[in-house]
């Protein structure tokens, strides 16, 4: 694909990261908003799509569209092959042992709900405890609360300190004989904190407790190796990884997935159905009832091809530079307080402006062409912890530039001017 070779060229090991060349792969970045160049800093909500992903969707619907895993005709075989090839790309991308451990879902939210219902209801009992953290997205809180109500289990919460880091001493104290699951974020969506998950997983495993990682905010910034992390489940969304919306991935350790009952019943998840008894299909199909988002899966595969051609060392350095520069620039603004000052951060800069609500900041920034998120970021407990109703969040991707950080700072000065 053109975009990929183009990128490979711009990411030569020797040279530095050429952000302007990368930007050419993303057609939306050429847009003007309210007469100003778009400055897209809402990557934590969703990533923009490179041309090769858009082309993959187009190519699928133009020349491959068919249902998968059933037709004997040419198109169905093409579509099945393309969809399964995408699964294999995802397996390689997160270094899973087998592609039967890669389950296509709608997104991170569905992945977590699947584990809560299939693993949780099967393996937890009344009185058992599930550990989450105080910096979780609602989608890593509510599915567990639903499970707790269903079976009489209990949620325990790892607290966070003033910098937005987990208090690990408290984490260690939460374990007891009733602890049955740990479900935590890899990177916080509201604060940007990178959680020391590898050490935490080791601790959990010492207590015989399996671990789910919410990787929605981690996959666009960090290289993920599920074997190295040694996690039991890893959930992420395709659309934050520059792929289509409506498709995501649950990685699960095969031994655990084998023991779990199916998520939904329907076509594709069975091997034999009679009115007396139904035999379920093998992994991963046991968890994939109904016609999936075929184009989405293929599009996610294209996004992974694109990302795999990038030099991730250079990306990490570029993103680190963006975040440090933005932190310095914004810290200079009178009355601006940064929320989330962990030592290890990725991609997110959340802040509050004295006497100005985040929504008003968001609206004025938008008039300057700067797209950010304003609100509670589906993490209301985090807002409570910091005593703020909402924050403004700038979230970065590798295609953002230093000039865009300057545009953000200028727009914040405009907010200050409006509010006096």
């Amino acid at each position: 694909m053109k975009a990929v070779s183009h990128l490979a060229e711009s990411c030569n090991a020797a040279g530095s990261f050429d952000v302007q060349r990368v930007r050419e792969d993303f057609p939306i970045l050429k847009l003007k908003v309210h007469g100003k160049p778009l400055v897209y800093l809402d990557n934590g909500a969703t990533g923009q799509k490179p041309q090769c992903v858009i082309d993959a969707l187009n190519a699928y619907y133009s020349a491959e569209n068919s249902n998968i895993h059933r037709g004997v005709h040419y198109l169905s075989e093409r579509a099945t092959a393309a969809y399964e090839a995408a699964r294999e790309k995802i397996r390689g991308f997160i270094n899973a042992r087998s592609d039967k451990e890669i389950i296509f879902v709608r997104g991170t939210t569905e992945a977590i709900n699947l584990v809560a219902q299939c693993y949780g209801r099967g393996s937890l009992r009344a009185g058992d405890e599930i550990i989450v953290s105080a910096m979780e997205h609602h989608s890593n809180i509510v599915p567990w609360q639903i499970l707790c109500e269903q079976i009489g289990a209990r949620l325990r919460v790892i607290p966070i300190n003033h910098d937005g880091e987990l208090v690990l001493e408290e984490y260690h104290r939460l374990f007891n004989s009733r602890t049955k699951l740990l479900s935590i974020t890899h990177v916080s969506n509201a604060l940007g904190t990178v959680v020391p998950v590898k050490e935490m997983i080791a601790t959990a495993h010492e207590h015989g407790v399996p671990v789910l990682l919410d990787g929605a905010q981690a996959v666009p910034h960090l290289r993920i190796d599920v074997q190295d992390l040694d996690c039991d489940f890893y959930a992420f969304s395709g659309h934050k990884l520059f792929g289509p919306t409506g498709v995501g991935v649950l990685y699960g350790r095969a031994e655990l997935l084998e023991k779990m009952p199916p998520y939904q019943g329907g076509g594709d998840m069975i091997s034999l159905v009679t009115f007396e008894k139904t035999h379920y299909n093998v992994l991963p199909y046991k968890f994939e009832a109904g016609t999936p988002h075929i184009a989405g899966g293929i599009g996610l595969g294209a996004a992974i091809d694109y990302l795999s051609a990038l030099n991730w060392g250079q990306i990490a350095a570029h993103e680190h530079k963006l975040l440090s520069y933005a932190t310095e620039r914004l810290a200079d603004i009178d009355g601006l307080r940064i929320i989330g000052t962990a030592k290890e951060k990725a991609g997110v800069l959340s802040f509050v402006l004295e006497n100005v609500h985040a929504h008003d900041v968001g609206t004025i920034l938008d008039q300057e062409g700067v797209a950010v998120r304003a609100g509670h970021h589906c993490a209301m407990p985090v807002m409570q912890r910091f005593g703020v109703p909402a924050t403004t969040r700038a979230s970065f991707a590798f295609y953002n530039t230093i000039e865009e950080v300057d545009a953000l700072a200028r727009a914040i000065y405009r907010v200050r001017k409006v509010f006096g």
Partner: protein
Amino acid sequence: MSDLDDLYQEVILDHNKSPRNYRVIADANRKAEGYNPLCGDHVTVYVHLEDGVIRDVSFQGSGCAISKASASMMTAELKGKSEAAAEELFENVHKMLTGAADDGGEKVGKLKILSGVCKFPARVKCASLAWHTVNAALHGDNQPATTE
């Protein structure tokens, strides 16, 4: 005037900075809470209703400049009005905020200053939250009002 200047007029910024009737009414006989689940804004509206007339009305809560100013202006406007007149005003304000008023919002008096909001669809709910809440208070609904 740009859309932005239209939205953040001096009067609105002033109500945001020094909201009127931002207090609890001790002998309120109507009270309702309102939430905007999208952004987490919340407001509590207190009403002292006597013989079908709003003798006193106040609010407290947290939200953006638009929601605060709208609530503040609402309390100033509703004081002394009959329940029926308040309901009529609610209808007209709602029409103006959503851009559905055929007269451009002439029926709402001073509140016309909020008409700039209709150019910012994402902010309409901020401006209408207090109105939904007072409406719930007057109808004696037990459920918190939401903008959804």
